């Protein structure tokens, strides 16, 4: 029982993922700052921000559903933390089972839906706009993302992330066989995380703060935590699906390789957010359905043909 609690609360559960989320936020902000000729924040800035938000007064606008607003970030956080439990961290995986890739996909969608509900539950006009946009965005990126990440599953012949990751030991990392799929998955992940250039639901010059306009204090802090943990879990997932190098190396080197792959993914995400302008929602829908879906299907077709 203690072992189970350790898995849930320390590693690879709550504590590990929250720390990883904060480290991710710091590296991301620092890299972005250097791209923009700024110095960037010190390493403890994400923690300081979180402490400050948690100690702030919590304002509830008149007419909003208070309980829903409190529950939504908590549900989202538990969903992404749970998703993180099934993803191998440098080969270590306590809870893996056949089909956990689908469970992870489902759990990773919970924050998006919660984000939409948060916009509707808080009565502000910008919140409703942001919420609607997040749902539109969800329909644009989710389908190509789902098609794309079934590529590695088909190739490995398994729907378990750990199994997919392990099968790269014999077959070689899937990024070599599915480079297009990897790019599509990164685009999908950016859409899922609502990061620049796909930060359409929270674009400050258009909809102020999006769904989170009316959130403040600890609730907003939890939302930021959700975003960071979601980013880390998404990165871990892609690293396992496409870059199985940590399975090819010795046990201790696996941790190092995993870390390098993680940092590489952060670099990719930061660079894209630094160099691309935000798309319009109709442009994103066009990109999603006219370009990403056909490309994802092509990639999947190639994978199936290669298996035959």
């Amino acid at each position, binding site marked *: 029982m203690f072992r189970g609690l350790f898995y849930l609360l320390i590693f690879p559960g709550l504590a590990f993922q929250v720390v990883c989320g904060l480290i991710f936020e710091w590296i991301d902000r620092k890299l972005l700052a250097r791209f*923009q000729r700024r110095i960037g924040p010190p390493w403890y800035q994400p923690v300081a921000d979180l402490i400050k938000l948690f100690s702030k007064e919590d304002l509830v606008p008149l007419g909003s559903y208070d309980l829903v607003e409190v529950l939504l970030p908590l549900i989202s956080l538990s969903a992404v933390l749970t998703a993180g439990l099934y993803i191998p961290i440098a080969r270590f995986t306590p809870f893996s089972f056949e089909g956990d890739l689908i469970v992870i996909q489902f759990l990773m969608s919970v924050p998006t839906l919660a984000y939409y509900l948060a916009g509707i539950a808080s009565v502000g*006009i910008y919140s409703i706009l942001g919420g609607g946009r997040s749902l539109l965005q969800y329909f644009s990126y989710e389908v190509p993302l789902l098609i794309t990440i079934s590529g590695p599953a088909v190739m490995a012949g398994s729907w378990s992330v750990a199994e997919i990751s392990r099968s790269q030991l014999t077959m070689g990392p899937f990024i070599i066989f599915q480079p297009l799929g990897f790019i599509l998955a990164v685009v999908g992940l950016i859409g899922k995380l609502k990061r620049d250039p796909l930060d359409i639901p929270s674009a400050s010059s*258009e909809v102020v703060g999006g769904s989170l306009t009316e959130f403040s204090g600890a609730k907003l802090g939890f939302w930021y935590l959700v975003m960071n943990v979601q980013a880390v879990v998404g990165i871990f997932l892609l690293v396992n699906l496409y870059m199985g190098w940590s399975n090819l190396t010795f046990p201790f080197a696996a941790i190092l390789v995993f870390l390098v792959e993680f940092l590489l993914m952060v670099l990719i995400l930061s660079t894209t957010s*630094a160099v*691309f*302008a*935000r798309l*319009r929602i109709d442009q994103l829908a066009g990109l999603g359905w006219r370009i990403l879906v056909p490309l994802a299907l092509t990639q999947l077709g190639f994978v199936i043909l290669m298996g035959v």
Partner: protein
Amino acid sequence: MDKISIPIGPHHPLLKEPLSMRIDIAGERVLGGTLRMGYVHRGIEKMTAQRTYVQDVHLIERICGICSHVHTTTFCLGVEKLLGIDVPPRAQYIRALMCELERVHSHLLWLGILSKHVGLETVFMHTWHDRELALDIMEGISGGRVSHAANQIGGVRFDLSPEQEVMVKENIGKLKAQVSGVLGVIENEPALRARTQGVAPVSADLIRDYCVVGPVARASGVDVDLRRDDPWPPYDQLDVNVITRPEGDAWARTLIRALETRESLRLCEVLLRQMPEGPVTVRAPRKVPEGEVVTRSEAPRGEVLYYLRSDGSDKPARLKVRTPTLAVLSLLPEQLSKIHVADIPVVLAGIDLCIACADR
């Protein structure tokens, strides 16, 4: 879809100065909008009538936080015309140099704001970093980054030392390299073009109907620039290239401003090269003879017009200021239809609002 009305302003992340709009939208489509302004009315025109001409120069500098120098230049030109005094040529050149530097920093500021609104924060940071060079020049020669207090009636308040000239030339050289980089981004960056090209195009006829001036007019192919059409000294001795584009959309406006920045930097170099020697000020009497005068000059955002009536005392009887922003604002409701919600920032940024100028 149901029609909803969203408020933009008086306080909104999109606006740097208070302005209020109510925009009717259906889904992501904009149906139309109404405008309300006057939040930063300070009664400056009335205040000038209670102060002497010497004090008014400093008051008028506070009309705008970006194009402060061109306002005082236009005012001083009018007073000097009434007084019938000739400003020394060196003072005219220093005035023009400040005008062009102001255009450079105003346009770079604007380019940054536009790119921030389309989610390209990197370009925002880089253009504002470059803009510091222009501000450094102005601080180095006048002592003030934004309010320079350069003009006085009868000339300018400071001279340009040889060391300062070297510093100005150096910084202008650096700025030229940076601006060509920004131009490359505007011309080639596909996501920026996707967000600005074809957004809210305005025809040249509409521009003429609304008396729109400045870069917005030039981006629609209307060839107006007072520096060439009605030059005040020393622009009559300069060869100003007026840049126009036929498209009239947000992208043309972006490109126009980047190209104008380059042209202004070229003019700065010409001004430094041709700068005559001599005094920088003449003594002006405190009392201004009776009469009225209209002066115009080309601010970064377009034509700025000053009407001045004197009753023979040391205080103006009436001063009327017409700023380019007011003319351009009247075009805004026309543009706020058939666009997306995401285009609102692009349209608003595209006309380069200076609310403080318009409200005074």
